[in-house]
């Protein structure tokens, strides 16, 4: 084996590949001792702790089958946006009481937004009429709250009701289905109820229940989802 200084080795003049083999021999009293390292080992050592090259769908996920690689923006659908999903309490007693409430923070609502409320009501026992209502107030209290509407009264063996409302904000008032009409949803025509609303103030949407007799009637609002449409 001829002796060549490392500095005198002929450059490969091409990128290191995994199949390359670098071998170095050292002179020993018994002859030569050879040591080698593969191109793959050098590459692996050099890349240790570094982020691997991103390959869409392989080591970086896609959004709705769209690659995240490259420059630019991907618009993510945010209309409607859900800002509350709450489970109310089933309550006994004959007074009007809060089952659930949702805070609408100041600045959340702007002109031409629509609040969409969906949920359901259930009770597990009782035979007399229970009434669901919902209100808005600047505190989380029924006292002084403004009535926004009422669901259908639930009597005898009516233990379940699907509930929906759309409320448009015109910049000054909340525009909603007639609050004096008890209905499970607003998929029909009615008078309009205009409720003053200041978007710079915190408000609570308050969902209340009232039973006509006490235990075992136990109406409650369930899985209330409140969304805003731009």
């Amino acid at each position, binding site marked *: 084996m001829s002796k060549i200084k490392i500095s005198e080795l002929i450059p490969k003049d091409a990128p290191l590949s995994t199949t390359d083999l670098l071998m170095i021999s050292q002179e020993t009293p018994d002859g030569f001792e050879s040591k080698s390292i593969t191109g793959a080992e050098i590459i692996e050592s050099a890349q240790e702790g570094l982020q691997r090259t991103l390959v869409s769908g392989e080591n970086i996920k896609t959004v709705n089958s769209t690659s995240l690689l490259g420059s630019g923006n991907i618009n993510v659908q945010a209309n409607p946006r859900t800002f509350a999903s709450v489970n109310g309490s089933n309550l006994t007693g004959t*007074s009007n009481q809060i089952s659930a409430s949702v805070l609408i923070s100041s600045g959340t609502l702007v002109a031409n937004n629509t609040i969409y409320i969906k949920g359901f009501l259930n009770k597990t026992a009782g035979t007399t009429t229970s009434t669901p209502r919902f*209100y808005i107030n600047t505190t989380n209290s*029924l006292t002084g709250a403004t009535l926004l509407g009422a669901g259908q009264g639930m009597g005898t063996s009516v233990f379940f009701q699907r509930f929906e409302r759309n409320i448009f904000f015109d910049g000054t008032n909340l525009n909603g289905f007639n609050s004096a009409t008890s209905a499970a949803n607003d998929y029909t025509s009615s008078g309009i109820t205009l409720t003053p609303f200041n978007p710079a103030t915190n408000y609570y949407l308050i969902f209340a229940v009232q039973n006509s007799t006490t235990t075992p009637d136990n109406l409650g609002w369930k899985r209330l989802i409140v969304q805003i449409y731009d």
Partner: protein
Amino acid sequence: MNESEFHFEGEAEILSETQAHVPTDRGVIFMDTTMTIDNESFNNINDFLTKLYGK
């Protein structure tokens, strides 16, 4: 009109012994006997409404 000024419209709806819906020009307002009128407290909603409507 002042923002805190309400004009009554129509008859109140009594919900329970202590609660009622009071129609106003700014919507139907829930009122109960935890509220006072001129620092006067009430034990039942009928007395409260009588005072409220000035009857």
